[in-house]
């Protein structure tokens, strides 16, 4: 008899020592364009899953529609490729039915920010224990290159030949506004960074939102110059570490100083090994700081990468008290049916 593992929450220690990325790899041929950033993200995800050691049988990948949303096919866990934009809602249902599962939600910027913006917002605000990862290529890949809500103003595309006039959405800021308690940012190319971010997201009990800058080689190649160009990355990005001063640059000669009065950040020089009293420490529990970090971007400031914000709280199913085993029995049902005023005809028993 095949039963649901009653002890799903407990890590499978035997497996933990044995699992490799291969254990999370299906026999399905991966069908992204050669050079697509999604390959690197998939690789990082498989590695993190192997390391975390949850049985593939306890892991679920839910996705919407788009290139990024093909993820479930390539992961040897349970998976559900649903409909455009609705993956966070489907995943909420999965979690309510079985809170012990490790549930991941994957969707592109169109999936999460456009058609599914509403569901993303509510999954975040409810703090459903989901790992929501959003490969952001700032374009609609699957439908062949239209501008997306994350596209830069002026982007020329089949649906905006004269250049889009729309302002792009800042995903991290949107997540903050929605009340998310875990917000992180990384990029496909940063294999020394992305796995750590994903690991932290998975470890958080609650909604974890991870924006992953992803290169679409076909329709928006080079959109994220700061993380693409190895020569530029160190100077154009800031890697956050909780409790550490926010220092960046190839020579680690620049720091971020926050002016709490105005809520702004500026770059300050950091002398060779000298004092860093000007430089602000990263505090991932500070909402005001997270807001400032989420907005930092070229040309004046580096792009903040890593965990921007993490303020844990009870997740949705804990607050609701969801438990898969709780079912009403026939005896309870008899009571429910007879609740309220009843009357008896003949000599039947009075309920």
């Amino acid at each position: 008899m095949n039963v649901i593992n009653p002890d799903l929450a407990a890590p499978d220690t035997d497996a933990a020592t044995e699992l490799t990325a291969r254990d999370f790899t299906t026999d399905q041929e991966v069908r992204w364009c050669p050079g697509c950033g999604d390959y690197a993200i998939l690789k990082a995800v498989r590695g993190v899953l192997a390391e975390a050691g949850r049985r593939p049988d306890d892991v679920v990948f839910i996705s919407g529609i788009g290139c990024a949303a093909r993820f479930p096919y390539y992961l040897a866990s349970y998976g559900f490729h649903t409909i455009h934009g609705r993956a966070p809602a489907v995943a909420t249902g999965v979690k309510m039915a079985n809170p012990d599962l490790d549930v991941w939600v994957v969707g592109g910027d169109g999936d999460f920010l456009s058609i599914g913006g509403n569901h993303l917002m509510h999954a975040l605000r409810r703090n459903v224990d989901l790992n929501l990862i959003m490969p952001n290529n700032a374009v609609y890949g699957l439908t062949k290159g239209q501008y997306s809500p994350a596209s830069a103003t002026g982007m020329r595309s089949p649906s905006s030949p004269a250049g889009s006039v729309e302002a792009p959405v800042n995903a991290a800021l949107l997540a903050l506004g929605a009340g998310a308690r875990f917000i992180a940012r990384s990029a496909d190319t940063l294999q020394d960074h992305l796995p750590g971010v994903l690991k932290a997201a998975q470890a958080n009990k609650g909604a974890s939102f991870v924006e992953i800058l992803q290169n679409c080689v076909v329709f928006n190649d080079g959109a994220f110059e700061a993380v693409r160009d190895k020569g530029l990355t160190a100077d154009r990005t800031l890697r956050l570490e909780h409790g550490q001063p926010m220092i960046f640059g190839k020579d680690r000669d620049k720091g971020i100083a926050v002016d709490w009065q105005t809520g702004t950040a500026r770059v300050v020089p950091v002398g060779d090994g000298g004092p860093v009293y000007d430089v602000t420490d990263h505090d991932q529990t500070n909402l005001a700081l997270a807001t400032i970090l989420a907005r930092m971007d070229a040309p004046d400031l580096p792009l903040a990468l890593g965990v921007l914000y993490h303020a844990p709280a009870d997740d949705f199913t804990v607050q609701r008290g969801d438990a898969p085993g709780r079912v009403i029995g026939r005896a309870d049902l008899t009571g429910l049916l007879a609740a309220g005023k009843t009357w008896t005809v003949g000599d039947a028993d009075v309920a």
Partner: protein
Amino acid sequence: MLDQPIASRPSETDAAQGPAVVRFAGDSGDGIQTLGSEFTKSSALSGHGFMTFPDFPAEIRAPAGTTFGVSAFQIQIGGDRVKTHGDAVDVLVALNPAALKTNLAALRPGGLLIADRDAFAKRGLEKAGYAANPLEDGSLDGFRLEAIEISRLTREAALPEGVTKKEAETARNFWALGLVYWMFSQDRAPTAAWLKSKFAKRPEIAAANMAAMDAGHTYGDVTDMAPPPRLRVVTPSSPRPGTYRTLTGIDGMVLGLAAASALSGLRLHYCSYPITPASAILHGLAKLGGDGVATFQAEDEIAAATAAIGASFAGGLGVTGTSGPGMALKAEALGLATAAELPLIVIDVQRAGPSTGMPTKVEQADLNLALHGRHGEAPLPVFAASGPGDSFETVIEAARTAVTYMTPVIVLSDAYTANAAEPWRLPDVDALADIAVDRDIDPEGFHPFRRDAETLSRSWAVPGMTGLAHRLGGIERSSGSGHISYDPDNHQEMTDLRAAKLTRIQAALPPAKVTAGADAGRVLALGWGSTQGALKTAVEDLAAEGHAVGHLHLRHLSPLPRGLAEIFALYDRVVVAELNSGQLRAHLQGLFPHVSFRGLNKITGQPFTVAEIDAALREDLS
């Protein structure tokens, strides 16, 4: 032209033991629905058969005294034959001019009208748009008018209980109730007990209301205010022995879903976004409070449907419920559930459309949407509940079908059934059959679209189960492996398989049956959903007169039950009665091109009256 001689119709006096129709009407603030439910309870306890129909305003707090703020409650009480809330009203209680204005049309000629004379003062008359006082200008001469100073009499009775003048006056609904109780010889004790517990913290309020009720009762006694002659003795009913309760269509859905959960051992996940009139199901289930029944108020109807699908994917019983506009939003998700072959119950409490339409009013116009409203070919079962008690059974059958065949199932209810109440005999819970869930799945050679040879159902492996990890989705699957497939032959095969599931479901359904009137003859009256009571009553009356007319009511709209063609062949004509412009008729005409169908259609936001159906059927019979 007649097949048989018709016996003369029963006259008013012949029907001296006929059921009685009472309608209470007043301002939304007058406690009319409370009156109605108390009268219902008392009628039930006195052994009457009944059917009720609350008619409340769409506005949350309409200005007092206006016609759009009128709240009404109608009940038919009497013998076993009571299947509707009644056509023409025998006794109308109007607590203000606006209530009289909006409800007078329902009162039968010569019917008894009880009005609170005190409320028919200048301001009230103006608000209701009366130029002259109808109680005095002779315009009500065709009725038996009893204009009583109800407000004053209530005040006098209630004030000694130590309440304020205002509190005393608000008891006038109970004064009117006491009078009506007297007229129908009903017991006041259950209402007194209810008042005591309801106002346990303010015993003086309970006492004031009871005093008002007693005063109304005494008034009837002293003035000997008899009911209209034909109602002196309301036919008692002789129901099956058993324990009964009052059940609305909403209660039926709520309890049916709880039962489906208990019978299947699956945790229920009811996911919904508030909308009238379906919200009451969400409220009812939320009140059950987590004991195996989980509710989720989603951010919209799309999230409600997809969260329910997610719950089913993870091994729960996913249910979503909505009304009209919300049903339109769920269409894409229904396609996903059909393609992924996951159990899902979708309840549509239909209301008058299009668009926002008339949210509190009844209509059966979502049938086309339920049968056909999906992109691609996405066949799924569609059932309809014909009344409160039938809602309980239908939703259990829907759950059984969804789980057995791994398919979404739509259950249609409507704004009439949702709020109407009838006496309901509690089922023997131990006798209800289990809903079998097969989780004994062999990982050897497993793939998600491996099927049961008989039901064509795929196996329901759920996350957490060892060795059965698989991927589902809306993209077409290979029937042999469950992998994505664009193979042309495979798509044909999968399309055929999805359709064949309905054929298998049909084979397991009970065959169609004529349930009232003649088994063959001139006319078959065919209906579905909440029109059942009116159709059955009309057909039974006509058949009693000797007419060759039968009644067949469909619960299963897709797949249709077997044997319909044979039954249709036994009648000259099939009259399809529905509260839309002919959706089922058009559907049937396409399937049975040689049958002579005629539509009996109404789309006013109101249920059929028995008289309307009677008149229409007579046309076909003559």
